[in-house]
């Protein structure tokens, strides 16, 4: 190969290199990878790590971010939010951080503007069940039932046996709940409760079957 041919080949290689280096288009995969990288940088920033070098490189490598055909509104917003988070963590007194803050502001001026999701929460409708109120009612009724005098001087195991019988015969589900509470309390205090648990389960299944038939 002659000297001229070598030079022409070098010329072509260098022109191709420069052409690709200033090519604004990135594939959507590259774009997503770029956004992931910025996400990582934002994460590092939140953990208080030094990210100036990483951010400088990212900004430089993504200078044609907005010119890409493969970028959509939600991705722009993502990037804007990451940059906004990173900016809030940069040290205003550090000259290099000041430069980066200016660059982030430039991106904002070009349309990379952070947006927050607005979440509206409705209060529960008045006609809906208020579980807390129902729970307070049942606990209150249980307390009145236990304090009615019927169980004075009885052992709690006997009280439980009596309540399980009521649970089996009566429709009021308060008895099932009360039995469950007493079983839990007894178990926590070292009593063997397996037979009572078995009885309670049988009663619950029977009640469920009855509900299905109705």
């Amino acid at each position, binding site marked *: 190969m002659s000297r001229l041919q070598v030079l022409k080949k070098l010329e072509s290689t260098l022109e191709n290199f420069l052409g690709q280096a200033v090519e604004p288009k990135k594939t959507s995969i590259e774009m997503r990878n770029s956004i992931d990288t910025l996400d990582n940088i934002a994460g590092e920033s939140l953990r208080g790590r030094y990210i100036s070098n990483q951010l400088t490189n990212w900004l430089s490598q993504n200078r044609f971010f907005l010119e890409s055909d493969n970028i959509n509104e939600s991705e722009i917003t993502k990037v804007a939010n990451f940059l906004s988070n990173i900016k809030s963590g940069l040290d205003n007194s550090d000259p290099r951080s000041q430069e980066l803050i200016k660059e982030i502001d*430039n991106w904002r001026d070009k349309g990379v503007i952070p947006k927050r999701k607005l979440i509206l929460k409705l209060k529960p409708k008045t006609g809906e069940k208020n579980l807390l109120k129902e729970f307070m009612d049942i606990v209150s009724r249980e307390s009145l039932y236990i304090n009615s005098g019927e169980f004075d001087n009885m052992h709690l195991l006997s009280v439980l046996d009596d309540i399980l019988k009521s649970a089996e015969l009566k429709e009021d589900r308060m008895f099932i709940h009360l039995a469950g509470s007493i079983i839990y309390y007894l178990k926590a205090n070292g009593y063997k409760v397996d037979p009572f648990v078995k009885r309670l389960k049988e009663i619950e299944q029977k009640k469920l079957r009855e509900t299905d038939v109705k």
Partner: protein
Amino acid sequence: MSSDSSEIRDKAIKALRNKEYAVASEIFKTTENQFADNIDFRILKEVTALLLAVKNEIYEIEKNDFIVEEIHTHGQETELRG
């Protein structure tokens, strides 16, 4: 990076996209200090300078290969042949 730096950088990139390498090179030279920490920018600057040097070298070689002959045909017509 200030908005001025950003503008200058955009101009240099635009010149490279338009294959105006001499223009880009001038911008790189005048803003060298502003982008001293920017590796990407420095690579573009060096590659552009190298490309211009290669182009100059090619020009020099091709210029020397270009021979102008004066040919007389039947002693009347004059034709320049490259």
